[in-house]
C-alpha cells in the first residue's frame, strides 16, 4: 500500500460509508471480531459522560447530562398540594419524560417516539422504588400541605442509551434541588417567600433553611447490547437499531441490584451473560458516582 493521496482517501471513505449503510450488521461484526467498535471504543467502555447542574434557572433544581451525544435536560418544579388522606404526611413526585422532535429525525410532530412512554414508565418505577427519596421529607404541615415535585426530563439529542442518561440527569437534578422557603399565611394558606421578602416578613417561615433532600442509595444504570457472544456497553442509536437485544441494569451506590430489564429481543442470554453485564455495570456505577460528586462539588464552590 503506497501513500494514500487525497482523492484516493475520499473514494475509500465513500466505499466504507456505503458498506456501512448497505450491510450494517457485517460492518459491525468485522469490528467486533477485533474487539473494538467503529468509534474506537473497546466493548466494555461507555462514552464520555458529563453532568452540569443548574442548567435551568427558572426551576427549583435542574441538571443537564450528556453521555456521548445523548443529551438530557431534567428540571424539577415544586408546588404545594394537600396530601391524600391515606398518607397525610407524605409528598408526591411526578416524573415525565419527553422526546421533542428536535432530538431525532425519527420523531415527528404527529407521531411521538415509541421509546418515550416506555422510558418514562421505567424511570418512574426505578426512581420511586429505589428509595432514593423519602416522601416524608416532602411534607410541610401534616395532613394539610405537602410538596408535589414535578420532574420533567427533555431529551435534546437521542443517540442511544436514553434510559441511562435520563436516570443520570434525574438523579443529578434531585441532588441540585433546593426546596423553596414558605410560610403560613393568616388564612392558613402556604405562601412562597422570595429572597427579598425574607428579611422583612413578619410571618415565620415553616422551613427556615432552604433545604436539600437527603438522597440515600442513589441508583445508576448501564444499558448493554447482547449480540452472539459479545456484550457491548452503552450503545449508540445506530448500534441499537441494528442489534436489538438490550439489557438495562440499575445498581445503587452500595452495589445492590435495583432493577433488571431485558425486554425480549432476538438473542436469548445465558445467566452467565447477565452476570457479565452486572460486573460491567458495577464498574460503571463507580465512574458515575465520581462524576456526580465532582459536579456537585463544582456547584458548591460557586
Amino acid at each position, binding site marked *: 500500500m503506497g501513500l494514500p493521496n487525497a482523492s484516493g482517501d475520499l473514494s475509500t471513505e465513500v466505499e466504507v460509508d456505503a458498506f456501512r449503510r448497505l450491510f450494517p450488521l457485517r460492518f459491525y461484526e468485522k469490528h467486533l471480531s477485533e474487539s473494538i467498535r467503529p468509534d474506537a471504543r473497546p466493548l466494555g467502555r461507555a462514552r464520555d459522560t458529563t453532568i452540569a447542574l443548574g442548567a*435551568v*434557572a*427558572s*426551576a427549583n433544581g*435542574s441538571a443537564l447530562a450528556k453521555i456521548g*451525544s445523548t*443529551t438530557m*435536560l431534567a*428540571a*424539577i*418544579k415544586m*408546588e404545594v398540594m394537600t396530601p391524600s388522606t391515606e398518607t397525610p404526611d407524605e409528598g408526591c413526585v411526578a416524573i*415525565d419524560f*419527553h422526546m*421533542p*422532535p*428536535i*432530538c*431525532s*429525525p425519527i420523531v*415527528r*410532530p404527529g407521531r411521538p417516539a415509541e421509546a418515550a412512554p416506555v422510558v418514562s414508565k421505567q424511570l418512574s418505577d426505578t426512581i420511586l422504588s429505589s428509595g432514593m427519596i423519602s416522601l416524608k421529607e416532602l411534607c410541610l404541615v401534616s395532613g394539610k400541605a405537602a410538596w408535589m415535585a*414535578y420532574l*420533567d426530563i*427533555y431529551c*435534546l*439529542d*437521542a*443517540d442511544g442509551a436514553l434510559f441511562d442518561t435520563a436516570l443520570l440527569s434525574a438523579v443529578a437534578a434531585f441532588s441540585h434541588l433546593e426546596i423553596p422557603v414558605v410560610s403560613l399565611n393568616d388564612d392558613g394558606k402556604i*405562601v*412562597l*417567600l*422570595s*429572597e*427579598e*421578602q425574607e428579611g422583612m416578613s413578619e410571618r415565620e417561615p415553616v422551613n427556615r433553611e432552604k433545604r436539600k433532600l437527603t438522597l440515600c442509595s442513589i441508583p445508576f444504570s448501564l444499558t448493554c447490547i447482547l449480540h452472539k457472544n459479545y456484550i457491548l456497553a452503552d450503545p449508540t*442509536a445506530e448500534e441499537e437499531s441494528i442489534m436489538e437485544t438490550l439489557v438495562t441494569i440499575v445498581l445503587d451506590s452500595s452495589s445492590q441490584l435495583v432493577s433488571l430489564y431485558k425486554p425480549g429481543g432476538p438473542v436469548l442470554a445465558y445467566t452467565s451473560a447477565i452476570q457479565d453485564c452486572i460486573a460491567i455495570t458495577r464498574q460503571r456505577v463507580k465512574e458515575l458516582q465520581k462524576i456526580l460528586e465532582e459536579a456537585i462539588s463544582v456547584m458548591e464552590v460557586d
Partner: protein
Amino acid sequence: MMQVRPNLDYEGPKSHQHHRAFVFGFEYGFLKEKLDQKEAAKRANEQLGFVFDIGPNPWSKPATSSFGCKPSLVKMEYVSPEGLRLDGRRPMEMRQIRAEIGTVARADGSAVFEMGNTKVIAAVYGPREVQNRSQQISDQALVRCEYSMANFSTGDRMRKPKGDRRSTEISLVIRQTMEACILTHLMPRSQIDIFVQVLQADGGTRSACINAATLALADAGIPMRDIVTSCSAGYLNSTPLLDLNYIEDSAGGPDVTVGILPKLDKVTLLQMDAKLPLDIFENVMGLATEGCKAVANYIREVLLENTKQLEYRRGL
C-alpha cells in the same frame, strides 16, 4: 390587511385583555427618513454596543405581587427617574445575547440562542423526503415548523406546552417568516422541518426562536436569501424600551416584534399588541429594527467563527 381580535391566551398574568393588530408578510424598504427616527436610531446605535447583564431572578415572584393587578390601580415604575429599567438596563440596551451552533448532533442543523434569560434551542431536519405524500409540492420545498415550550420554562409549571393556541400561532408565525427567506424553489418535492423548543422563557421568546431558527438553517446549509433576525420593543412610562423581558411584557403596554432581512433591508415580520399613536409607533419600530441589526451583526460573527472552525478541522 389588518385583523383585530382579542387575545385570550397570554404568557403573562390574566389581568387584562388587549387587542392585537397583525400586519403579516409585509415588505417595504426604509426609504423615508424622519428626523426623530434618525435621532432615535443614532442614540440606539451608540448604546447597543454596550450590553448589560441580567438583574434579579425573574421567576422568584413573591406571592403578593403587584403584577397581577390592573395597570390602572397600581402605577408600576418600569423606568426609574434616573433612566434605569427594572433589571438595570438603559431603555435602549438589549439583553446579553449568546448563540451556539451544532448542539444537536443528530439534526442536520441546530442552534441554541439566548437573549438574557430566554433560552431557546432550534433544530432543522431537511431537506428530506416529504412524509405525507399528499402534502408534497411539485415545484418547491414544504416548510414545517413546530414551537413548543418546556414545562419548566415559565414561572408556573405549564400544563399544556404544545397544542394550545399560543404555540400554534407562534409556530405559524415562525414558519411564514422563515419560508419567506428560504429559497424553496431549489428543493422541489422535499420537506424542511424546523423545530423550536423553549427551555427558559423570560419575554421575547418569539424573537429568540426566529434568531435560533436562522442559525440552525445556516448550520444545515439550506440556501436562504438572507438571514432573518428579530427583536422586540415596547413603550412604557413614556419611554421606548428595547428588548422587553417578561415583567415588562406583561405590564400591558404595547409590544412590537419586528423581523427583518438585514442585508436586503426588508421587513418580513411585524406584530404589535395594544394601542400606540402612529408617530410613537414609528420610533418604537425603528428602535426594534436597530436591535435586529445588532443581532444580525452578532449572528454573522458566530457563523464566521463556525466556518473558520470547520475549515480548520478539514485541514484547509
